[in-house]
């Protein structure tokens, strides 16, 4: 049981989290723009998350909180 929360208003859409997710369940949400004008990242299949925190470790902007 694991949960990641993305604080999308802080996301700059840099995609670094995508590159490290072992489950490949993070994607850029092209349908959303945050206040800074970026398409933010988010989890597509939350049930597959293992709470490894790789995404949060790689995120330069402290967008991601991980619970397990």
């Amino acid at each position, binding site marked *: 049981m694991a949960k990641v929360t993305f604080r999308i208003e802080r996301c700059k859409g840099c*995609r670094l989290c995508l*590159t490290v997710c072992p489950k490949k369940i993070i994607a850029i949400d092209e349908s959303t723009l945050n206040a800074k004008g970026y398409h933010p990242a988010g989890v597509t299949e939350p049930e597959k998350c293992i709470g490894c925190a790789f995404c949060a470790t790689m995120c330069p902007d402290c967008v991601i909180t991980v619970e397990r």
Partner: protein
Amino acid sequence: MSIVFQRPHALIDKPLHYCPGCTHGIIHRLVAEVLDELGIEGTTVGVASVGCTYNSYEYFNCDMVQAAHGRAPAVATGIRRSLPDRTVFTYQGDGDLAAIGTAEIVHAATRGEKITTIFVNNAIYGMTSGQMAPTTLIGQVTTTTPFGRKPELHGYPVRVCEMLSTLEGAVYVERVAVNNVQNIRKAKAAIKRAFQVQQAGLGFSIVEVLSICPTNWGLSPEKALEWLGENMIEHYPLGNYKNVVLPSDKPASKE
């Protein structure tokens, strides 16, 4: 469920001004995590330098002093000598530390000042828009080496860890990178050890962090990480260049 990863307390909750994918954000967080884990946010004074991180004092929750270009190790010397029970660190880029501030870093190291330097090497000047840094690689294109860095015209890239590790006052010298999760974890361990070395009063400690500058490298953050892994590490090998025994170290099994 409990929270296993969140913003450290020593990093102020505000948006960073860095470009998308800039790894300064990761390195800031690692320093802040170490301040949290060692419980020293309230007893630490950081020194911000000149470059993209000139205002890192807006992000770190400890007391901060902004220094002139290259002078952070001298400023840190003044602070640490005045506050012997405090922890003092500098956060400097490659232009600041290895060009204009070469004298200050070399002499702070050789005096064995009890300070910790976080040296971010991204092989380029970021703030002033992509000029050659002392650490720019041979062949690397920058706005002041438009046809690539040529040794006969621009000299050779400086290897700071190798240079400083020859000095007796520098007791902990390590080069890390933040190009993948495994390396980020190693980077944090190195930063933590560097602070512990200072706390033990053993001498000068420095962690060089290979970092990316997607904007001025002209690469996506993802490609920039690959470029770091494929090009920078070859010239700047990762690993420990100088170590010292800490009181907290477990007795090492001799090989």
